[in-house]
């Protein structure tokens, strides 16, 4: 039996198996696609914000794609940021701890962000200075239009920062 050519019954079996595999594959793909974000979610891509509305030493939180973006206008007594400022004295970072995604709180007296979950700390530039966070707070994709910042679009300033590896 073993050295016989593929019999008709075997052939039918293989054909059925292959066809069933195609069916299962397609169904799994359809199932996979149902879990993707809906169009209305994908559409919340960009947000604009007026930087001049932030006073020196003040911090504002902008919601972008459901995530908080911290806009901090630094004062001279805060940490100096080499290349991590989006513009002048402005720190714009994603307010999500790079450790496990909690939202760090600004502590005005120490001038740092402190993560309540696992004790991570970031300076006024968003650089991780203590605890488990593996890297600074991310800089979201941005584009500058005068004093207005567009979050979710990659402008030349962002691309420059990205090339230097300063955005993550």
């Amino acid at each position, binding site marked *: 039996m073993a050295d016989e050519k593929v019999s008709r019954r075997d052939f039918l079996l293989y054909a059925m198996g292959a066809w069933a595999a195609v069916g299962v594959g397609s169904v799994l793909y359809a199932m996979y696609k149902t879990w993707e974000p809906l169009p209305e979610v994908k559409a919340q891509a960009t947000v604009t914000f007026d930087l001049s509305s932030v006073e020196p030493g003040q911090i504002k939180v902008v919601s972008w*794609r459901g995530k908080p973006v911290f806009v901090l206008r630094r004062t001279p007594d805060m940490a100096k940021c080499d290349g991590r400022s989006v513009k002048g004295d402005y720190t714009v970072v994603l307010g999500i701890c790079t450790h496990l995604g*909690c939202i760090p709180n600004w502590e005005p007296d120490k001038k740092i962000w402190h*993560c*309540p979950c696992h004790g991570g700390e970031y300076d006024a530039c968003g650089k991780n200075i203590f605890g488990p966070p593996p890297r600074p707070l991310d800089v979201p994709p941005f584009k500058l239009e005068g004093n207005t910042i567009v979050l979710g679009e990659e402008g030349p300033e962002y691309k420059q920062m990205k090339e230097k590896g300063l955005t993550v």
Partner: protein
Amino acid sequence: MKFMDWLDERLAVRQLIKVMLTEYYVPKNINFLWSFGVLIMVVFAILVVSGIFLLMYYKPDSHLAFDSVNKTIMMDVEYGWLFRHTHAVAASIMFLVLYVHMARGIYYGSFKAPREIVWITGYILFVLMAATAFTGYLLPWGQMSYWAAQTITTLFEKIPFIGPDLVVWIRGNYIVEDATLTRFFALHVVFLPLLLIVFTAIHLYAVRIVGSNNEDGIELTKEEKKHGKGIPFWPVFMAKEFFVISVFLIFFFYLVFYQYKFAMDPINFTPADYLQTPTHIYPEWYFLAFYEVLRGFFFSQNLGLIAFVLSMFIAAFLPWLDTSPIKSGNHRPLYKILFFIFVADFVFLTILGKLPPTGLYAWLGFAGSLVYFAFFFALPIISRIEKKKLEGGR
């Protein structure tokens, strides 16, 4: 009796009852720890029934979920609070009985040949139960629900290459949102319970084939158990089990009526807010030990993650880590010591998991995590020592 005859002719129910109950023998040399398997079934039944009643008023929508639980079910539905408290307490107690059941299996070597399938299916059941608890915990849509889901789904981000996309896919959004809630709901009420039932069936079937282990870990044949060394599961074993169930239920409903707060975190009575992390977040008590392993490697996030995943799954490989021919911990002095250190370490990690991860606690967490793994890595070594001793003795 006529009805039974009628049924027997069509479904062979008498044979089924014999195989499953009256001629399925349990060894006599077991102790009360062997009653926890049935207790798990009791708790599961309580969860299913209370869950069905919660389902009748719960709304899986991020705008409606919190009020449907905290207003409709808790204040408007008559006895709604009873079903919620029962469900929450049962979920918590499920892990208590599961841990005892598993610890008994580890101590008496019930995972060893020929019971590997019993152990593996049991372990899968534990993981499924953990997934069910985790998805269920999001449903009330409180702050603790939300941030538990947010942090745990973020863990997937660290998977190389596909991580960031995978997280968005799991959530159906850039953050935990309505889509996440609704899919977790579907998993919690349909998919995971279905899998739980399927694997429970395999687990029980496997136990029917290989039989229960016993305190001495010495195999008994069915004949031996039939003639003196065992008792039939029904009615003799279950007669005692009913007593254990009764005592357990007194304890359980004492918790439901007087101590339910331990299963209901006060922070979770604030609606979910994606812009505000609660100042101190922690998982439910039954995940604290694993959580502490995650935090224990405080100096390296990646190491912590690997350790966390390993800590959750390493016990599944016990049958291949512990190859000693001696089963029961009663006859293994070295193993006995290790086992109790392991249990103490698990409790220690659980306590530490609730404390802030700073200073001394961070180092204690690291030490505790190492001890946790030391137990598993010591098993092949003591297996060899015991094998040598056995060979030398003959």
